[in-house]
């Protein structure tokens, strides 16, 4: 086992230098945004507010979705689909969510859960093709090594490789989303470099998430139940408040080895 994307991280982060101040991020200033994440619903969870805010400002946004999410465990609550029908269900849900967010969508056609077992350069080449075609000024992906899900780490890594392979003047800025407990991320990575205020687009983000019915029905049901009986703990309340007010990004330098390369 030479590579274990789930093991604790001890190597230095690949961010361009730990930020001491988090700067406000206005996606309206982008020429175009390409989001590269592995699953239908990642775009809404990770960057739904940013995408909605960008689209409202007339910025062209595209979601390049790595897989069809067809190995997902959630089938709705109660279950309304099954392992073999889930792919079509999630494809349709993603198209609806992206309509809410004003975002184009295309698929890479990789197998859910298996991205880390593909040749990273081959995956990177597919991402690079999309960048060369769409010429976005920013690419959003997961922070390799801080994505929690192995697919998140692997596609984040491939996206860094994709940008690394472009000539200096052709490179979009790489914005990485890190998942995990805030304190753990702060000590591992420092402050995020950018913060997008999405307060005005919270409803859009939530509507996009609701469109991913098979995956989010249970979450919304829990939120409703907690709201009614007041059983919500401080931590989950803080998470929910943040979830609808801001989205944060680390700016990655594509020439710095990712945590997956550092570990290999």
């Amino acid at each position, binding site marked *: 086992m030479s590579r274990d994307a789930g093991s604790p991280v001890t190597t230095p982060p690949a961010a361009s230098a730990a930020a001491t101040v988090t700067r406000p991020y206005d996606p309206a200033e982008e020429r175009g945004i390409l989001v590269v994440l592995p699953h239908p619903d990642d775009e809404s969870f990770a960057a739904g507010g940013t995408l909605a805010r960008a689209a409202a400002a007339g910025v062209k946004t595209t979601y390049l979705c790595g897989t069809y999410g067809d*190995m997902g465990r959630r089938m709705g609550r109660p279950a309304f689909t099954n392992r073999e029908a889930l792919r079509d269900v999630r494809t349709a849900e993603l198209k609806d969510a992206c309509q809410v967010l004003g975002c184009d969508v295309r698929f890479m056609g990789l197998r859910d859960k298996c991205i880390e077992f593909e040749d990273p350069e081959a995956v990177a080449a597919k991402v690079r093709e999309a960048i060369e075609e769409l010429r976005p000024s920013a690419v959003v992906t997961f922070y390799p090594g801080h994505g929690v899900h192995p697919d998140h780490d692997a596609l984040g890594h491939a996206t860094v490789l994709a940008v690394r392979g472009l000539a200096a003047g052709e490179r979009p800025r790489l914005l990485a989303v890190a998942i995990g407990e805030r304190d753990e991320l702060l000590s591992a990575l420092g402050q995020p470099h950018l913060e997008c205020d999405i307060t005005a687009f919270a409803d859009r983000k939530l509507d996009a998430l609701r469109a991913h019915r098979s995956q989010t029905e249970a979450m919304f049901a829990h939120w409703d139940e907690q709201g009614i009986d007041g059983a919500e703990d401080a931590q989950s309340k803080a998470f929910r408040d943040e979830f609808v007010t801001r989205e944060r990004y680390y700016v990655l330098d594509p020439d710095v080895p990712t945590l997956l390369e550092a570990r290999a």
Partner: protein
Amino acid sequence: MRPIDRVSVQAELDRRLGQPHYLHLETTTGSYTKLGPEKKSPVIAFVRNALLTYERGTVTGDGPYRVGLKLDQGWVYADGLTDFEVNERDELLLAGLDCEGQLTMALQLSPNPFREGEGDR
């Protein structure tokens, strides 16, 4: 899917006896267990589109149910099955679903390969 009734599932297993079928066998905790309060490691395995023929196939238990397929050389085993369906492609789908509707186990048999690759059907 609907709750397993043993008579229907047994009839499906008997009907497919001795004919080559593609297997999808899976068990999963989900990939996000580390984010839970106990920070557990995920436990997940799947096999998709292994070709096999079984000489005896049986559903047992009082719910959740077990299925065992006796192969020429070896076995296929699954416990924790609750729901089933035969879809329009004649695929027998057996699943374990928890109280949240989440899939914990799947054992599926199809006369043709289960869907793979790019593109809409």
